């Protein structure tokens, strides 16, 4: 009944709509939330949506994993490994930046007791 969902075109449409919806959920959170940890969560959601988008659009369900060995020598039906390598790198970097940000937020909270970004105005006085 849901066979048509397996077609690459349909999958691409679903991936695009879904990941862009997720992207705007993150963007909405980034613009409306005031709690610093919630803002970091919004940023993480936006990042994940882009990773899904990129992998989803470059991945073909009919193709096989890009591993060359004695039986698999034909590269024409293999998935492109470059997006996967890129996204792996990007995930690591994104995680590192988020961890750094959360550690700044914790240190800042310890010193001032503030978590709301509207109240972060040390420079004003």
């Amino acid at each position, binding site marked *: 009944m849901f066979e048509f969902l397996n077609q690459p075109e349909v999958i691409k449409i679903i991936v695009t709509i879904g990941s862009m919806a997720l992207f705007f959920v993150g963007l909405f959170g*980034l613009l409306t939330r005031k709690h*610093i940890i919630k*803002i970091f969560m919004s*940023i993480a959601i*936006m*990042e994940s949506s*882009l990773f899904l*988008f*990129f992998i989803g*659009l*470059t991945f073909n369900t009919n193709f096989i994993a890009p591993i060359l060995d004695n039986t698999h020598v034909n590269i024409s039906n293999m998935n492109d490994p*470059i*997006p996967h390598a*890129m996204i792996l*790198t*990007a995930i690591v*970097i*994104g995680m*590192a*930046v*988020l961890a*750094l*940000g959360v550690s*700044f*937020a914790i*240190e*800042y909270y310890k*010193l*001032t007791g503030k978590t709301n970004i509207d109240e*972060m105005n*040390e*420079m004003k006085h």
Partner: protein
Amino acid sequence: MSSILFVALPLLFGFATPILSKFGKDGVAYTSMLMQVFLLYLAFDLLSSADFHVEIISIAPPLGISFVLNKASLFLVALFTFLITLFSLYYLSHRKTDAYENETKFFILSNMLLASSIGLVLSSDIFNIYVFFEIAGISTYILSAYKKTPSALEAGLKYLLTGAVASIFLVFAVALIYINVGSLNLAVISQSFEALPYNIKVLISILLLIGFGFKVEIFPLNFWVTDVYQGSSALVNALFSGIIVKAYLFVFFHILYLFLPSGEFSVFLVYLGAVSMLVAEIAGLKQTNLKRLFAYSSLGQVALVFTAFAMQNKEGIQAALFIVLAHSIAKFIIFFALTSIEKEHKSIHIETLKELNSPFLRAIMLIAMFSLLGIPLFAGFVGKFLALKSFAVEGMFVIMMIIVIGSLIESVYYFKLAGYMFIKGKKREVLNIGSMQKVVFVLLAFLLIFIGIAPFIVSNFLGDSANILLDAKSYSDMMGGV
């Protein structure tokens, strides 16, 4: 010798610092200094031997990783290594006086910053540019939060939040480029980018503009800059304003020239830059905190560089590179001087200049301010003159007006500062400056005047660099005709 050393040595050194620090802080400091002097030698060696080529790091292009060494990129590499060497020289005598800044961690961060800014400039691959973009980001976030005071942490948080958002837009752009073009190599993308459907092209351009716009401090994405400069220590601001912004600016326009050689959005970017300059100069007028004031001055100058780069013609790029040179040197003087003042007076309010008792520092700061302002016989004048000439050549008189008005507003607050410095009144005891620091100040000030008197030493070279940057075809030829 290989150009990979520019990235590998600072990174290697940075991560070996915890082990090296077992041998004492001085050991780390002097080894770091030695390594930077070696890189400086290497940069000038490559420049003088005129050995311009593509250096393959792993597999051949378009698949592998490669560095492009041409006049334009090597000019910036030489500038960055020169400035960071002087930074280390200044730091060597400064660190003993500041408990926080006298930690070996500082070397990890400054070397990471050097490696990433050189990597940004040399890289020929948009994904590597993203990776270096993030390394530069991480090192700058930590540097600005380094002192762990509430204001420093707030500056670090603001920097990190904007940087994280910027990197999301950059990843989005990289993903769309790969989906539509099928390659990450700049030369390959440059060949097929203009032929892409108009909507995709505009979408990618907007994403790149937002991603880099945060980092190149362009209006309206520069709201965070002044807070970051005010919260961070003045010493670190020298690195932000002198090195890392210049690397981002260069790589943004490098990508722009390769992707859109016909200059489709050139006029829009020129107006954006001019408006940024005007906004920054007007906002700078009523500032009383010196770090914040010079942050606005930085914004104004960077916006001027942005405008000149956006002209996308030889004169404009030559002027932009000239201002990059003059501004980096002048801002190093200013922020080093502010570091000395802050150390002595424990305050960085504009009123502290009244009590400043150091004829040497006053003279040096005045030279830097004259250069920033564009007084004849100083390097900044030549930059501004070339920029105005390039706008005149294209007949953009509105832009010329805006730049001149911006410079006039700028002069108001520089003369206000000079007035504060030379006002008669109660003075403190004479401010002590280490002899090593004096050498750094004198060298930088000498360069400003020397380049101002004899601009032809660098201007021809910068003109050639501009031609190279504009020539997208020879870039892909250099890459082996991919």
